[in-house]
């Protein structure tokens, strides 16, 4: 997969240009605790994601496991209702523009007419609001192929029943006509009539994935979510399936959302790339822009981590260190600041970072009695005794603490055994267009909240 063949340009059918429009999508999962199952917090699997998928293209979604890409796919498939925002299917060009205008403003700023207009758009295009005929039409046009070819086929059904089921549900065919259509579908994925009367367990992983694809194609959909469709396969089989998907796309004018953690595969498949980190998009753009001139340090680190793609070895970004943050308590500011190799004082340093730092300094946490937060950026840390509190202040002021964190600290005072610590307040970062159709949220590029005093950092990092 080292050589990337040029993708043939596909003719765009004269239909709505935007097939899937994701706007401010949030999906939180409640964390329950105790006998009464009280909700004590939320895992923010998808936390404010917006992007478009245009007809006929493939949008690749990449990120480490746990970044919310699968949840995003499930929301788009209608398997999970969104907590906030939504997924809109097949908006007309005018409607798309209206939706953008309406969702860009805060909800309290909308006039009554505008709210009614948004409600009308929601009712006719937002997938979790669709009912009746509109829902059926969306269902037929939006299909899915899952990663696990073993769990995605019912082990008690024959192949003819698995592939023919969508046609039966919509009463498209029955009897021998149904069977002929199933055979046709099987043939289009490289299987045949001889496989009709077999059970899934009689097939290899690659063949099973072909059966899944045939089922997804049965209703002749416009759009298919491919959720890591080749991650569980051998490399040689992987290439066959990817080529099959490409061929099918060309023949049938399909639109794909391709979810994967494998950058090589995503590069092979996608026209445009969306990079996700802890529930947010950190960068998005065309395949060539994202791979050849990545803007966000996280994207660089991902590229760095896949050896065959690390094209520019003198790039500063090292391998990814540290853990992915807990999506129930995502970091402030830029969510990547806890692991970022080119972090600045304006990236969102917070109390959690200081606590984690002290934790790393051995005995720190044993002596930490409690953390009294006033905000994410301001808290009182109380320790066992004065001596220890003094020691911690010296650690936080000293060279053991990264210079960027020290600079972000605008208050550090000790009174008795309590240390009051305060960081700069940093807003959540926003995506901005840096180059045409190439967006990122990294403040080194957007300049959002970047302290003029930090300018030297920006130059140093070649941003």
């Amino acid at each position, binding site marked *: 997969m080292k050589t990337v063949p040029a993708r043939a340009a596909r003719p765009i059918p004269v239909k709505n240009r935007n097939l899937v429009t994701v706007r401010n999508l949030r999906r939180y999962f409640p964390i329950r605790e105790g006998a009464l199952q009280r909700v004590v917090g939320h895992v923010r699997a998808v936390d404010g994601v917006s992007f478009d998928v245009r007809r006929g293209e493939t949008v690749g979604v990449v990120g480490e496991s746990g970044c919310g890409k699968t949840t995003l796919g*499930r929301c788009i*498939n*209608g*398997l999970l209702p969104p907590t906030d925002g939504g997924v809109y299917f097949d908006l007309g060009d005018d409607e798309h523009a209206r939706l953008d205008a309406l969702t860009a403003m805060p909800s309290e700023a909308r006039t009554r007419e505008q709210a009614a207009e948004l409600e009308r758009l929601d009712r006719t295009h937002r997938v979790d609001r669709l009912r009746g005929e509109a829902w*059926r039409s969306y*269902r*037929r046009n*939006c*299909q*899915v192929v*899952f990663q*696990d070819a*073993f*769990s*995605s*086929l*019912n*082990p*008690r*059904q*024959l192949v*003819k*029943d698995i592939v023919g*089921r*969508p046609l039966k*549900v*919509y009463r498209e065919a029955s*009897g*021998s006509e149904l*069977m*002929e259509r199933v055979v046709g579908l099987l043939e289009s994925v490289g299987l045949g*009539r*001889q496989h*009709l*009367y*077999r*059970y899934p*367990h009689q097939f290899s992983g690659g063949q099973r994935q072909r059966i*899944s694809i045939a*089922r997804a194609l049965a*209703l002749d959909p416009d759009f298919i979510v491919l959720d890591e469709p080749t991650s569980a396969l051998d490399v040689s089989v992987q290439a066959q399936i990817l080529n099959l998907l490409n061929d099918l796309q060309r023949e049938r004018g399909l639109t794909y959302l391709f979810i994967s953690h494998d950058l090589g595969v995503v590069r092979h498949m996608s026209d445009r790339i969306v990079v996700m980190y802890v529930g947010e998009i950190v960068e998005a753009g065309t395949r060539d822009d994202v791979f050849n001139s990545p803007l966000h340090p996280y994207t660089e680190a991902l590229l760095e981590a896949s050896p065959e793609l690390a094209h520019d070895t003198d790039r500063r970004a090292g391998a990814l260190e540290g853990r992915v943050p807990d999506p129930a308590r995502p970091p402030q500011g830029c969510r990547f600041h806890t692991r970022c190799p080119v972090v600045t004082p304006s990236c969102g340093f917070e109390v959690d970072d200081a606590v984690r730092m002290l934790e790393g300094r051995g005995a720190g946490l044993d002596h930490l009695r409690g953390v009294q937060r006033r905000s994410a950026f301001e808290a009182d840390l109380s320790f066992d005794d004065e001596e220890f509190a003094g020691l911690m202040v010296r650690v936080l002021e000293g060279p053991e603490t990264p210079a960027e964190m020290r600079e972000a600290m605008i208050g550090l005072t000790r009174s008795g055994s309590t240390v009051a610590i305060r960081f700069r307040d940093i807003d959540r970062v926003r995506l901005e267009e840096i180059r045409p159709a190439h967006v990122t949220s990294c403040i080194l590029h957007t300049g959002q909240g970047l302290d003029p005093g930090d300018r030297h950092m920006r130059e140093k990092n070649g941003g």
Partner: protein
Amino acid sequence: MLDAARPRVGGHRVRAAAVRLRRFASVGGEVLRNPTTLAGVTIIVAMVGMALLAPVLTEPNVPDPYQMPRDWGALNEPPGTPDHLLGTTQHGGDVLYGIIWGSRTSLRLSLIVVSVTVAIGVIVGSLAGFLGGRVDEVLMRIVDVFLSIPELIFALAIAAVLGPSFGNIILALAAVFWVKYARIIRGQVIHVKQNDYVDAARVIGDSRLNIFVKDVLPNSITPVAVQATLDMGNVVLIGAALSFIGLAEAGLAEWGVLVSQGQAGISAGRWWASTFPGLMVFLWALAFNLVGDGLRDVLDPRTERR
């Protein structure tokens, strides 16, 4: 290629049925390859055969063949007596007649109890597992209450309250045994509904009922089949225990009743009236346990070969 010929509509059905039958037969063949299971199956076939052929093997008692016949001229005859091959009871009842018609009683008891409890258990467990949430909470708390009482004691209590009759034994056993199935099927359903093929069916747009019937239930049912086989034996065992302590009508051609009525004579050397029916209870329970274990080995998903 044979397949190239376009089969008629009926042809597809027949072919699918043949494939399914072959799969079923291969599971059956695998089960029977285990010698202890084969022994169990042999015993079951013999006992069920005896139950079905009861009117042929013995002259049915009139008016009610399920009552022991009384031969007042032959009390406490030992085994080997002409006309009374296994001897008679203190009331002049033929032990062989009791064994043969007792197998009918047992078969009736276990079939009714198991089918009723499987049906209730599967419905309750499926609702709890598939719907989840409040429904699950409520149903499972009820199940917990039932499970917290030992089954023999519970059945005893119910049967005692309802009064001594064979019908009430059936009721009591049914009230006790359904809980296990609810538990089993709920766990299975919760596990199975997380499979991607369930989500795939939702994405296709199939109805919840269809998804339950086609995807969830068929993949959840095997442990129930195993448990039901084991319970075919257990029901008779506990049923016999209940009749032994006098919760069935006296004079009923039932193994537990025979053991109970014969035990008084054991000290006087009249061992046969209790021993033969007791042996039947033992064989019945043993046979279904052997087959149940064999089924578990073959059907258990953890040992299932892909």
